[in-house]
């Protein structure tokens, strides 16, 4: 019999499975679970965007596009990045359209990482960065961001993480799961350190459209001297509610993008054609739909944050993305125990903060991509659960 252990790569088999698998299995056996566990918008893709996809199919646009993506889309991406974040990119060689932001992150990490290279990852953050670095033979160096710093990366933390082997810094802001954002002055402080060094910044800005309280997203690439050392990663999933279309992009210096494009070309060919046509419409005419969704998220955000604080779970105001990240230490439970017992007792699904890496323990992630009635019911159930402790 074949010995699969000899076949499989130890690099891959050593990667831990997702921290929520266990909870997922439990909910499979349950009825009436009320979930705050999903990192995905509840809105369907705005109709005009869907229509553009349908139209492209009707007119037979069903073939590969160029490796880099449709020229019209790359041009729209440049226009969008300019008007939103003040960034100038050339559509010919500074933009690559990818299969979701995830592919862009993966290909960028692979393009820069040699065995033993260090890549700095602030945590708690989205779960893909660390395994992607490991798969590329790199060494993840974790910055544990702190609640008292609003989960921002401080200059001191960055300096402490940098070594002669540092290749890149991943900047996951606005942040899933903490809802943290980095404001201009926060970024200036990091830029002062980074400008003097050959360290690339991979700025994952997938939630850039979703910031609240009048704080618009600032890209680190827009800070003086940073564009030449930053790859901006963005996409259509969160802002335009297009998760299933699988479309993202990277914008950055041509010498980097040329190598990233090679990986993309051999691994993927091109991003889905229908999605690219729909995305052109999203960037041209999607502002109003995005604003309406943002307004809706904002109301839900206020509701869920007030709810958690009212029932005694301290919750800082998340300024971006669509997650609340309340602290559950007052219950005396670990975040894993909290989530499991809450699920069994009241059938409410939230994600343990420790699933998002270091610094996440003692917190849970509650998504507010749900209707206000749904959020209110979840809070009522959590309140009932807290009273039993």
């Amino acid at each position: 019999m074949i010995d699969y252990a000899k076949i499989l790569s130890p690099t891959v088999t050593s990667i831990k499975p997702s921290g929520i698998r266990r909870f997922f299995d439990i909910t499979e056996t349950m009825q009436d679970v009320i979930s705050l566990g999903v990192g995905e918008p509840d809105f369907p893709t705005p109709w005009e965007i869907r229509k553009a996809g349908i139209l492209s199919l009707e007119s037979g646009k069903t073939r590969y596009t160029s490796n880099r993506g449709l020229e019209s889309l790359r041009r729209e991406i440049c226009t969008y990045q300019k008007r939103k974040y003040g960034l100038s990119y050339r559509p010919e060689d500074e933009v690559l359209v990818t299969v979701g932001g995830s592919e862009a992150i993966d290909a960028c990490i692979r393009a820069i990482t040699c065995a033993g290279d260090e890549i700095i990852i602030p945590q708690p953050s989205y779960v893909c960065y660390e395994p992607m670095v490991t798969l590329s033979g790199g060494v993840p160096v974790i910055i544990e961001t702190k609640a008292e710093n609003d989960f921002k990366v401080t200059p001191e933390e960055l300096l402490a993480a940098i070594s002669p082997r540092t290749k890149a810094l991943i900047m996951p802001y606005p942040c899933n799961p903490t809802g943290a954002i980095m404001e201009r002055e926060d970024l200036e402080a990091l830029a002062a350190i980074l400008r003097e060094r050959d360290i690339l910044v991979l700025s994952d800005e997938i939630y850039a459209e979703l910031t609240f309280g009048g704080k618009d997203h600032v890209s680190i690439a827009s800070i003086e001297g940073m564009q030449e050392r930053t790859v901006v990663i963005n996409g259509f999933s969160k802002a335009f509610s297009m998760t299933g279309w699988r479309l993202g992009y990277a914008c950055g210096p041509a010498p980097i993008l040329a190598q990233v494009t090679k990986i993309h070309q051999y691994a993927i060919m091109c991003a889905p054609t229908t999605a690219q046509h729909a995305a052109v419409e999203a960037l041209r005419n999607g502002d109003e739909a995005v604003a309406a969704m943002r307004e809706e998220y904002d109301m839900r955000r206020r509701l869920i944050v007030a709810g958690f604080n009212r029932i005694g779970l301290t919750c800082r105001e998340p300024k971006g993305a669509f997650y609340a990240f309340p602290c559950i230490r007052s219950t005396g439970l670990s975040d894993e125990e909290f989530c499991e017992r809450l699920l069994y007792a009241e059938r409410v699904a939230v994600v343990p903060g420790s699933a998002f890496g270091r610094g996440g323990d003692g917190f849970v992630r509650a998504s507010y991509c749900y209707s206000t009635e749904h959020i209110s019911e979840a809070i009522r159930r959590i309140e009932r659960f807290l009273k039993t402790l």
Partner: protein
Amino acid sequence: MNTKLLKLLNRDSRTPVADLAVMLGITEEEVRAEIREMEREGLIRGYKAVIDWDRLDSAYVSAIIELKVTPKAGLGFEDVAAKVMKYPEVESVYLMSGVYDLNVVVKGKTFQEVAKFVAKELSTIESVTSTATHFVLRRYKEMDVELLGTGKDERGSYLL
């Protein structure tokens, strides 16, 4: 006038005042005052339940009646509209652009009852020149609420 508040009430008029206040970033007292003011001004005319009548055996039937009307000098369509809307059988009356003038939604216990009402009452109103009756066979969506479908969240419970 607070259009955000109106939209929230329009979506669910039973949303607790405390929740409305939090969502809008104003105090509960301000929410109550705004609602009182909008009620007083007649901007908010009522609060009703959205009911899926098709689930009842004793469901009522409704019909959309297209009325063509000769407008009266000086009064336009107001005079006829005022007459039509007084009938308890009439649920709504709209003045329309296009090939007919008044859109009247009528409800009754049976098709016969509605048909009789149209023939005996609406079509005999002076200045009504014709009627066309369209019976509603099934209600799929009522006041923004989808009456079909499971309401199940396709996204599942967990996704990082």
